[in-house]
């Protein structure tokens, strides 16, 4: 490198002062960042990335203590006093992983950015600061920036807030930006927008970026050079492409190997049913007929006015015995509402859900218990889903008792059998769930669902909180259980890579509607809907993409499910929208071989609108 580095880290160690002995979080980290360079930092959760990011911006707080040097343009800033550090805040900016908590919730976003600008550079007049903030908000493509200036943080979506925080960071033309996991809380399509934006900003402002991420594919999108951190140590440093092609350290090799592949290798699909069975012949175990759910929400600024939030709109599909059916989509697409409808925690406001041909809405008493025995739910959050003070055995016994089992010996026997099935040691029978890993807890969740010997398991983001290794293990377990018990799975997920591995049939949801419904191979290799293409193009993967982000990636964010625009709900973001989209919402049309998409651009030969009978 010709130019002197803007940031130079040498022998940086961070300790956590503990009551007994300190714990080392970071150990002898050393690296440089050149001007205008984007350097990625990758590592697992808990490897010390966030601590590193905080240490570099002089933001560590007790009980963390740091040693070593962090030179910014030659000046050691590691343990600089706050007063001496303040002028440098203009040059060193920081954006964190929690956009919603980063600003005072009670003051408008724009005002707070202007406040920061004047704090780091008191020479700027208030009016000038305001003008610059609006200009930059506009530059990061926040719609009607001048009005948004006065909006509060709670009125921003996560992606919009993250962009506003980038404005906050860039407002003082910093020489270095430390971006700590900025895309982590965002949906894939929005995360891809933010990364694209960051690259534009570095060019425009000549800022160097340290891009910290827990995902190697995400870091690859942004960074030209990448550092890998494992348990507080810097284990490898290479240009990003070389790092992926020829990882040198064992940890990096594992990391690269664990990144799921979508297109290169065909994954082993769990198929217990006939692979090429005729769907119209076997009767479905679950059938959704034109299911809608509308919530009344209080309308701001009226006496008793409410408006309709249409969370799920006219969803129709069939699930057959032995299917691993996936419902995918980004936040707010209605998949959680669909989960509540399927598990009959709520009744739909329109349409019917049939289980073995029987409408589940009017069920009550023994009939409802019967349905509950047939369909069970495995929950998302391994830490919230177990009552904290109940023994594991007792937890698994509870459903049996609810369903009228009385014989203590038989109950115990059944619980032990299920624990064995899901790979839980019988020694855990009397233990409390505290101290168990997320994977173990998810096994308990699965066991709790399995104890009633259901036919259908509804998985609500069951795997999203687990790391790759745990995910593999649980997927293997699911496959085993499916083979042994002939189960049908319904996965509700935002993780297309997991779905690619585990599911044979996939429904893509956008704003409460199913926009595409297809078998696994077809969906990933020949998607019919532009939204599916956008999702695929934004997937974090190391393979060569089938769908280029430049062609498919979306602008903006989904409209509000209250007051939906007329016509196709996707048209405001669709790169291929044309006149008919504004006039009428498209229906699911068949594209042949059981694949359907809801788009006016789909013109497969013989395409025709389908009704409930043909869907699925």
């Amino acid at each position, binding site marked *: 490198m010709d130019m002197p580095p803007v940031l130079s880290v040498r022998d940086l160690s961070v300790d956590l002062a503990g009551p007994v002995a300190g714990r080392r979080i970071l150990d002898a980290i050393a690296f440089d960042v050149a001007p205008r360079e984007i350097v990625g930092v990758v590592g697992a959760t808990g490897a010390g990335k966030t601590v590193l990011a*905080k240490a570099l*911006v*002089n*933001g560590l*707080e007790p009980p963390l203590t740091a040693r070593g040097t962090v030179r910014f343009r030659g000046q050691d800033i590691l343990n600089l006093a*706050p007063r001496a550090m*303040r002028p440098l*805040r*203009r040059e060193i*900016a*920081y954006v*964190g992983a*929690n956009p919603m*908590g*980063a*600003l*005072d*919730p*009670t*003051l408008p976003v724009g005002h707070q950015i202007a*406040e*920061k600008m004047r*704090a*780091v550079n008191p020479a700027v007049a208030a009016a000038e600061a305001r003008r610059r903030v609006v200009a930059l908000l506009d530059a990061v493509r926040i719609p009607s920036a001048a009005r948004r200036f006065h909006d*509060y943080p*709670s009125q921003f979506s996560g992606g919009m807030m993250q962009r506003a925080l980038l404005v*906050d960071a860039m407002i003082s033309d910093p020489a270095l930006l430390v971006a700590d996991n900025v895309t982590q809380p965002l949906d894939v399509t929005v995360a891809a927008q933010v990364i694209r934006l960051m690259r534009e900003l570095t060019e425009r402002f000549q800022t160097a970026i340290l891009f910290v991420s827990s995902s190697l594919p995400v870091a690859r999108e942004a960074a030209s050079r990448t550092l890998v951190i494992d348990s507080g140590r810097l284990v490898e440093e290479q240009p990003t492409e070389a790092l992926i092609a020829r990882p040198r350290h064992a940890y990096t090799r594992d990391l690269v190997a664990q990144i799921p592949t979508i297109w290169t290798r065909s994954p082993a699909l769990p198929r217990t049913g006939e692979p090429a069975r005729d769907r119209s012949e076997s009767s479905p175990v679950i059938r959704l007929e034109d299911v809608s759910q509308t919530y009344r929400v*209080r309308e*701001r*600024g*009226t*006496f*008793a006015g409410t408006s309709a939030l249409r969370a799920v709109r006219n969803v129709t599909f069939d699930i057959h015995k032995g299917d691993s059916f996936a419902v995918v989509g980004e936040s707010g697409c209605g998949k959680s509402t669909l989960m509540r409808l399927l598990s009959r925690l709520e009744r739909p406001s329109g349409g019917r859900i049939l289980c073995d041909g029987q409408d589940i809405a009017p069920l009550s008493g023994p009939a409802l218990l019967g349905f509950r025995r047939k369909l069970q739910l495995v929950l998302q959050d391994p830490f919230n889903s177990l009552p904290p003070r109940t023994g594991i055995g007792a937890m698994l016994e509870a459903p049996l008792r609810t369903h009228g089992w009385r014989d203590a010996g038989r109950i115990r026997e059944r619980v032990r059998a299920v624990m064995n099935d899901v790979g839980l040691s019988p020694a855990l029978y009397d233990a409390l769930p505290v101290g168990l890993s997320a994977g173990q807890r998810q096994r308990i969740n699965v066991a709790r669902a399995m104890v009633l010997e259901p036919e259908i398991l509804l998985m609500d983001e069951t795997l999203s909180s687990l790391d790759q290794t745990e995910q593999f293990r649980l997927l293997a377990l699911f496959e085993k259980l499916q083979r042994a018990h002939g189960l049908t799975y319904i996965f509700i997920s935002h993780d297309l890579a997991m779905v690619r591995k585990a599911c044979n049939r996939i429904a893509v949801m956008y704003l409460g509607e199913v926009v595409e419904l297809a078998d696994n191979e077809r969906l990933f290799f020949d998607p019919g809907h532009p939204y599916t293409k956008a999702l695929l193009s934004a997937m974090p993967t190391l393979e060569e993409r089938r769908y280029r982000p430049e062609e498919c990636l979306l602008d903006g964010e989904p409209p509000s499910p209250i007051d939906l625009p007329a016509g196709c709900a996707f048209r405001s973001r669709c790169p291929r929208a044309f006149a008919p989209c504004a006039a009428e919402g498209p229906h699911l049309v068949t594209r042949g071989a059981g694949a359907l998409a809801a788009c006016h651009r789909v013109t497969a030969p013989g395409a025709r609108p389908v009704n409930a009978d043909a869907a699925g």
Partner: protein
Amino acid sequence: MFVLSFLARRLAQGAIIITLVSLLIFTLLRVVPGDPVRLMVGGMAPDSLVEQIANRMGLRDPILVQFGRYAGQVVRGDLGHSFVRPANGAATGGANFDDATRAERAPVAALIGEALPMTLQLAALALAFALAFSSLVGIAAGLRPGGLADRFAFAVSSIFISLPNFWLAIVLALLFSVKLGWLPAVGYGGFSYTILPAIVLAVELSPVLIRTLSGAVAAQMGEAYVAVGRIRGLTETRIVGAHVLRNAAVPLLNLLGVQFSSLLGGVIIVEYILDYPGLGLLTINAVLQRDFPLIQGIAIVTSAIFVVINILVDLAATIIDPRLAY
């Protein structure tokens, strides 16, 4: 527009609350033993006279009928007349009950109208004392949990919350008024008579305020925006002054709304002890004299004040934190 609809909704809710309260008090007063007519006419009057008067006053009708009649009057702004008090002069009652004098009995609204400003003055001063003291102690405690100020706040609030207000009033009156002669204490003869009762009430009110404020400040200091604010380059003064205190004010405001009734409870006792001519003294005398219309009137007025204060508090909280507008 938002404010108008907010007001409309809250006032409607408030009307329900006030109706419930007056119905509750109305029913309670009629189901508990103790006949007000007997008190009015005196022990010597024959039972037939008691019945005759009670019937004439409608006190033997079903409760809901009585309530309906009463509510009708209240809506027209008439809180009725005191059973006992004459329009001017001391409380009457006893053997000389005569229907002709009924018109001269004091209207409840006038009695309350006289006493209420006194009480409001006392409550406002007490609140000012309490807020000044608690913000000083509570904010310092919240900024450094576990520090010296925090321990001081804990000690002070533990002691203050353990002092019964009526006892404190007696002791302070003995000390400041009788022994030291610094402040007048008993009765009312000018603004200085408000100070001592206000101090007593402030002592009673401070512990919760201190605890809420120090807790809220400490919680806000733990929020992400504070740590991020430091990294963004904001000064500590600015973070605390412009952001932390602003956010910590919301729970404090809510507390004030809820604490209103305990403040009023304290006011009643302290007024009674120090013979301060406000709503509290009026209430206790009304109860002791079984002056039903007056008790009801006071209940309606206090719950109306509660409703208004809570609307103001929520409006203020909404202005500070727009997320609260639902």
